């Protein structure tokens, strides 16, 4: 009796789960695109849905663009969903085919290493914007500019007091990003030129908002933020005397910047391509991208590859 019951229950459960699974396959979720044949109008009315997931830093931009995109009558048949979750999640999801677009702060080659290196080869990179980071310090600190060497000394724990880099006698508190963060990798690669460890007493926060709050409130704090987050609660510091301004970044004088990437698995399908082209179009690049504090990719006079080599 008991055994029979168990079997029945097990069966019911499996059927139930299977039903759950299949019901949704048929619903709408996996970004399956259905190109509803070319209507006899000039432009084919595309329909389908896209799922973009990944970097929380890039999320505001993609979200804003997706809203505009869906409001456009040309693309009324397409729905775009934008999720966060972090660059790693985005790359994982796009590489496994669960998301159509994977948003990432860094090159996939830097995330998929060793055994996973092949996964990066399958992905196609679309660089949609450039983001720059500036070193910020607490407002009480009298230092205006830090050299590369001074920054390295601070972030590797060699220098622990502001008086050694031209400030007052005050302890330095580092507000860093977690070691897995793309923002941190960019900062290490292009501002420090070396990897740095999380040293004793340093603070690691993943979110720009929290970093800004901590730098603003903790005496003697130093951190780094994307340009879009800078405001008057923190003080921006020059890097080797160069101010983190757009024209310095465009000309390559200010090196601490990175591309924001949208990855697709293989060449993008029709719907994804339409969306990415829209993202790269001038009306978006010169409006929303700039509004959100990024720099349009087309403006850059220098280029970089995954290894960090710069070409003019």
């Amino acid at each position, binding site marked *: 009796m008991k055994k029979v019951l168990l079997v029945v229950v097990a069966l019911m459960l499996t059927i139930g789960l299977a039903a759950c699974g299949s019901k949704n396959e048929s619903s709408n979720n996996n970004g399956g695109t259905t190109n509803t044949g070319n209507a006899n109008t000039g432009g084919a009315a595309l329909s389908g849905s896209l799922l973009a997931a990944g970097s929380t830093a890039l999320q505001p931009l993609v979200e804003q663009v997706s809203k505009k995109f869906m409001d456009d009558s040309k693309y009324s048949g397409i729905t775009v969903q934008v999720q966060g979750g*972090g660059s*790693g999640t985005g790359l994982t999801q796009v590489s496994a085919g669960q998301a159509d677009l994977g948003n990432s702060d860094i090159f996939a080659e830097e995330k998929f290493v060793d055994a996973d290196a092949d996964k990066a080869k399958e992905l196609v990179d679309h660089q949609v914007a450039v983001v720059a980071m500036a070193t910020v310090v607490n407002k009480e600190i009298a230092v205006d500019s830090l050299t590369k060497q001074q920054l390295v000394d601070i972030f590797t724990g060699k220098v622990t007091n502001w008086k050694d880099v031209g400030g007052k006698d005050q302890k330095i508190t580092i507000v860093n990003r977690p070691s897995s963060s793309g923002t941190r990798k960019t900062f290490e690669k292009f501002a420090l030129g070396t990897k740095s460890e999380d040293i004793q007493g340093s603070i690691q926060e993943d979110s720009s908002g929290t970093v800004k709050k901590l730098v603003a409130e903790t005496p003697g704090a130093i951190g780094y933020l994307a340009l879009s987050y800078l405001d008057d609660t923190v003080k921006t510091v020059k890097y080797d005397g160069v101010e983190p301004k757009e024209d310095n970044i465009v000309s390559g004088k200010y090196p601490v910047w990175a591309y924001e990437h949208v990855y697709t698995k293989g060449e993008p399908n029709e719907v994804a391509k339409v969306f990415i082209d829209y993202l790269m179009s001038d009306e978006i690049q010169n409006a929303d991208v700039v509004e959100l504090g990024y720099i349009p990719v087309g403006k850059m006079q220098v280029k970089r590859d995954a290894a960090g080599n710069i070409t003019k």
Partner: protein
Amino acid sequence: MERPAANDKHFVQTANRARKVVKPHLVEEWVGKVYTTLCILVLVVTIGAIVYFVSSRGLTTFFSDGISLSGLLSGLKWDPEGDIPLYGALPFIFGSFSTSLLAALIAAPLGVCAAVFMTQIMPGIGKRILQPVIELLAGIPSVVFGFVGLSVVVPALRAIFPGQGIGIAAGAIVLSLMILPTITTIATDALSGLSAGLKEASYALGATRWQTIYRIVIPTTLPSLLTGVVLGMSRAFGEALAVQMVIGNSPHIPHSLFQSASTLTSVITLDMGNTVMGSAHNNALWSLALILLAMTFVFVFVVRFLERRKNR
């Protein structure tokens, strides 16, 4: 009046007749049994699935990435993104234990006091004011707790004690408020379940109320009180968002309570999204999740043990 059964055969016949009468009930009973058993099975299957998935991901570290369990549990250095990746989770384990222990130390006396007030001193006011207040505390979301911690607790600690204000102390204070309801509720149940006879006897012998409380009431209900504290601790152990905002997340064993530290949950929330599934770093994070899971079981067994002592 029934005659005693002449022989077994007659008895069986009556029983059969009786069974025929309850036939509709049989179906009814069966429906109830099947339905409730199904529900319980869903619970069991859920747990099994969670344990299986977390284990299967968390054990990968040891099988394919060649990290030893002892190395993970006793290593002091956590640098997964370094040139030589190091996975030492001891600082996190230390941080988790110290924050939850400290939180329990703060919350236990408060909770027991509140329970004594509600059951022994002024039940009227207790029921009308204190109990709703405690229940409200349970309903405040952890996101809000974290934000209040960062805006109020951290600056206060920074002003009073040397150090950065963030760290184990701030984490413990925020957590102690979060687990106060758990401890208080269980303590109140235990104290109100105490038989009145014991107390009456103590009063009859001329003991004051306080003597009765600390010589009779508390010792007799001690196992239940401890159960509450342990359950509270286990909740503190698993809390993620609120702790991550106020603890600082430096992967080192701190020199003081006011220096940046890390817990298992905080490092998981920070890095999980930024790492790709299947990479060594990501697997190591799953191993930390597995440690959390194992700890949950340990806490439950401690509770069981305490309850067995109580029933003796």
